């Protein structure tokens, strides 16, 4: 195969990987602060995707423009979820939290099935078949917009955690739970905010994902697994690691789809996960496990 085919696939893989990375960033932020593994992450992603599809089908609203509103809706969803349901579970054992979120995942998948039926939905934008010519490269316009928006959203989140007072307070909770309580932080509210922010990442990523793939109700578990693979590859709790992991997995999937067969592509993602867990369990950019 000529080199430019590979180059095109590499670029497409990186752009899709950025959206994956944003989704995984949500999972990473939630785990890094709240210490709860969100087993309903992909299912929340599918809610966001359906929101984007419905807004487009009913009002012709472009998913790219709807990115912020959908992220806001998902923020509210995540906030309420943490405040109402998950906060009482933060002191319970891991398997108990796991079960809570699995139950939630079952409800979401089947509620979507009930409302939208089993058929795949898609968004047909006017620029769905456009592409940019960059020398020998042919970049898919949808993927370029999606990747760019993912970077912008992630950058905004980085800035929030780095520079805002609330962001600093959230990082304090993540560093030292007891310490945060001692200095008078409202940890439960900050946890709810964090879960909301994680859900907002998923909202933005889901909205953009509709530009790239179709959505079905049963797509949720696939994305949950994908988010795990990415986050653990990059390092659970590391924000930059999530993006790096997303790019790596997006790239792996794209290349494996080209070189081998598309149906085997996630096998390579899992192979990477296994290797990382064995040789660098803290992930590529994670801190050492205690």
């Amino acid at each position, binding site marked *: 195969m000529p080199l430019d085919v590979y180059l095109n696939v590499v670029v497409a893989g990186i752009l899709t990987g950025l959206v994956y990375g944003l989704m995984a960033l949500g999972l990473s932020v939630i785990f890094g602060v709240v210490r709860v593994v969100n087993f309903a992450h992909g299912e929340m992603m599918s809610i966001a995707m359906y929101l984007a599809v419905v807004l487009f089908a009913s009002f012709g609203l472009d998913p790219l423009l709807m990115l912020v509103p959908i992220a806001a809706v998902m923020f509210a969803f995540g906030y309420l979820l943490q405040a109402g349901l998950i906060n009482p579970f933060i002191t319970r054992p891991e*398997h108990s939290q796991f079960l809570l979120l*699995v*139950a939630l*995942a079952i409800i979401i*998948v089947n509620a979507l099935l*009930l409302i939208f039926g089993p058929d795949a939905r898609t968004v047909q934008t006017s620029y769905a078949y456009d592409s940019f010519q960059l020398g020998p490269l042919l970049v898919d316009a949808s993927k370029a917009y999606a990747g760019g928006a993912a970077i912008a959203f992630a950058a905004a989140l980085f800035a929030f955690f780095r520079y805002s007072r609330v962001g600093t307070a959230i990082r304090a909770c993540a560093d030292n739970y007891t310490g945060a309580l001692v200095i008078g932080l409202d940890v439960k509210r900050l946890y709810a905010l964090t879960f909301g922010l994680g859900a907002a990442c998923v909202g933005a990523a889901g909205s953009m994902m509709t530009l790239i793939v179709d959505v079905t109700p049963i797509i949720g*578990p696939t994305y949950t697994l994908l988010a795990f693979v990415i986050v653990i590859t990059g390092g659970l709790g590391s924000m930059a690691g999530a993006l790096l992991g997303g790019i790596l997995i997006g790239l792996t999937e794209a290349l494996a789809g080209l070189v081998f067969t598309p149906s085997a592509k996630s096998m390579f993602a899992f192979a990477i996960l*296994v290797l990382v867990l064995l*040789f660098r369990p803290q992930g590529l950019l994670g801190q050492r496990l205690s």
Partner: protein
Amino acid sequence: MSAAWLARFSGGAWRRIFVLLALLLAVLLAAPWIVNDYLLTVLIVILYSAFTGQAWNIMMGFAGQLSLGHALYAGLGAYVAAVLFVDFGIGPWLGFLAAVPAAAACGAIIGFLAFRFGVAGVYFAILTIAFAEFARIGFDHIAAVNASAGLFLPVRQVAHNDVWHLRGDPTMFYYVILAATVVAFILCRLLLESRLGYFWRAIREDEEAARAAGVPTFRCKMYAVMISAALTSFAGVFYAFFYNNLFPEQVFNIGRSIEMILGPIIGGIGTLFGPILGAFVLTGLAESLNSIMAAFGLSMPGATQVFYGVCLLVVIVALPEGVWPPLARRLGLFKEWP
């Protein structure tokens, strides 16, 4: 010694537990004469999940190692026995003898890699998912087992129930899985009361402290994975011969792993009655919801599952320990049968 032993077994709690067990077993033994074919199939599903739950519980409930990839061991057992039967005409019981080392070896590899490298907790759970998913996609591409097109076992009309070849009517399958569940129950009780069982519980409560006290933690955790995997592989063999078809997408699906662990968690993790009770509660709930929907002539895909999820949520929120521990306390059995 004998006086203390006698006193222990004639104590109130023991009498109550024997009565309870005898009653349960009597009802289950008599069930095929009482219930219709549909309910018998439901009972088979219940006992199947009680069995797999019991097997999973060895790892999580006893030794504290959360596995979310147990579909891998069941799937391996199913495929090993099915391939031996389809390609070489070797019966399921000999197939089971081959499935056990296969599943145990697979568990040993995962355990060895994880425990050597200090992969624990959530990381370990996700490693087990990764291996199961790896197997799912891998088997989807192995031509020798017919890849994603699925492996089918020849169905043969038999005049008599043939337990040796696992060919017969649902009643036979029912008794096979009932026997397996009883064996698993007894095995788990023996394990839990053994030296190894105490080591496991020490590891579950505090691994560092256990190691400091001289418990060989690595070896004990390896035993837990291997025993749990070996036991689970029997469920796979049963699955293969009961359903007669195997699709990687089905048997290795993460959904299977999650189904396996819901029962013991709902019933009470680390308890012996938990997996059985949980299986009855969950499958009973799902089936009664289906019947209610059918009775009202409603057919909405997803509705039953949504309600099921909500019920699950309520149980988790209301009963953090699961169903059995509070029940056992009420019955005054908690001390001997926690």
